[in-house]
């Protein structure tokens, strides 16, 4: 090190200094590129938000204005009476479907993950492969019989029926993740509890749940975001407009089913529907990324 810094070059800078300057310039350049790209990535969301707080008349201006001349929540207000019943009902629909999906996915994945990780029973491997094989078949290709079945048991046009389908498609990921979570818990903890005379279920309830909580959070986040965002199944299973989830309802706004397309209100609706996903992601990012790495990469 000392030798390099002593070897001065004609400009008077040592090699080390030159290298440091070069590194600093590159770093600055990297930040400039990052900031420009970040602005481009944020632009659509920001632009949607800016327009949602314009006055409704300004949001419809041709050509559009860049910045609102007046800030207003009128677009959001208009949404509350939009369509047949207003957006509140559709927020409610999406929320109910998402919550049923979250609870269902957590319960089934936790029980199943525990069973597959810690118990031996006949047919275990076959059943495990069967559950995971669901990953290979996209739900898009079995929607037709699912629809026929759901109609036959009168669960079409019900939020519950849609949630049942969503739960099923969360299961392979959930089971895989929860099984790994349980496997990561040292066997000794459970064994000593068993020796103390605890039953398997009370071990799960009293001891294991706390230890696998990160996995449960991950399953919950994915169940929520996926069911909140899902479009195709929601479009097919619901024909009653009162039962539309948010994305399906907003699509009817876009197609002007309720009269002229109200773009300002539509952007207010876009903002309303991206806030929950973004908030959950930002608050629980670590768990989300764990799921991405555990679910997509390793399996």
């Amino acid at each position, binding site marked *: 090190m000392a030798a390099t810094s002593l070897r001065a070059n004609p400009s008077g800078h040592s090699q080390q200094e030159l290298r440091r300057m070069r590194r600093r310039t590159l770093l600055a350049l990297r930040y400039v590129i990052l900031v420009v*790209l970040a602005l481009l990535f944020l632009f659509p969301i920001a632009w949607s938000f800016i327009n949602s707080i314009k006055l409704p008349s300004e949001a419809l201006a041709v050509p559009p204005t860049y910045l609102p001349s007046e800030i207003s929540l009128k677009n959001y207000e208009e949404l509350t009476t939009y369509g047949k019943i207003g957006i509140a009902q559709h927020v409610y629909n999406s929320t109910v479907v998402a919550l049923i999906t979250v609870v269902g996915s957590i319960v*089934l994945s936790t029980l199943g993950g525990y069973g597959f990780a810690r118990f031996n029973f006949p047919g275990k491997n076959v059943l495990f492969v069967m559950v995971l094989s669901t990953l290979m078949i996209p739900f898009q*290709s*079995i929607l037709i019989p699912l629809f026929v079945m759901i109609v036959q048991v009168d669960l079409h046009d019900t939020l519950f029926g849609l949630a049942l389908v969503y739960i099923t498609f969360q*299961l392979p990921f959930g089971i895989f993740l929860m099984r790994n979570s349980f496997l990561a818990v040292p066997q000794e903890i459970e064994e000593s509890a068993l020796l103390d005379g605890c039953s398997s279920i009370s071990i799960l309830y009293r001891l294991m749940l706390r230890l696998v909580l990160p996995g449960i959070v991950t399953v919950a986040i994915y169940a929520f975001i996926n069911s909140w965002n899902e479009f195709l199944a929601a479009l097919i299973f619901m024909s009653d407009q009162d039962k539309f989830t948010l994305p399906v309802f*907003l699509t009817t706004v876009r197609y002007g089913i309720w009269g002229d397309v109200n773009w300002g209100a539509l952007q207010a609706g876009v903002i309303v*529907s991206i806030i929950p996903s973004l908030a959950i992601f930002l608050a629980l990012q670590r768990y989300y990324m764990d799921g991405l790495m555990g679910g997509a990469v390793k399996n």
Partner: protein
Amino acid sequence: MNLSWSQRRKLTGLLLVMPTVAFVTVFFIIPLLMTVYMSFHDWPLFGERAYTGLENYQELSKDRQYLKSLDFTFRYTALVTPPIFILGFILASLVRHNIRYIGVFRTIFFLPVVIGLGVSSLLWVWMLDDRIGIFNKILLDFHLVPKAQLFLGRPNTAMNVIILSVVWKTVGFTMILLLAGLQAIPDELYESAEVDGAGYFRKLLYITLPLMRRTIALALILSVIGSVLSFDQFYIMTRGGPRNSTISIVFWIFNNSFTYFKMGYGAAMSIVLLAILVALTGLQLYVLREKE
């Protein structure tokens, strides 16, 4: 009933996995078998079903819109995959090192991934509008176009702008996958290559790309599977137009099954889609297996 301890464990294990197995059987295995069964039938939503053997499949080969949809879907996949991958790779390289605030940038690039594709399509169709869209406003203000462009009104530009919107929406996912791959490469490899005088492209070619083979394959396959299954962006942004030029496979299955209610025919198409996807997933498993 007196069960031994090990019998009780067996029973408990079975009971624990039963709900999941029941769900998967009812909402997955049975529908899967039913898709096969339905594909051999004329199956309207109401009224008589009739066994028709292979007729649905024969009709497929003569259905020009179906062939067009296959062609469109593959073309779309071929066009959207490279930009997602290349931009994903560039982003991953940019956010690779843990320099200050890098977490913020990673988060920002990833944000669109957690927005639904349906909602993001609603956002983009509005930005791309010829009258009130921001793109035309900017292009006109900077005199880059003589008059407002109907981006979604012509097949070529429709394809391009939809690709732009999907790249924005999904590239963060590819970035994160590739980032994990990049970070798994030991720094010493680069350091010793630098000692040997290797520049950026030599390092990329001889260290980064070969060592990331599996991650790259995974990112590409997941991206391809997603594109083959695409529906939301076409349904919302173009409604399949102009002149039915942006109808994907899933879109055409949707139209046949849930607009015309030719469900048997839709099932036959689903079987073909299934075959394509099983092949792709098989390829994915094969590529990922290699390492072990």
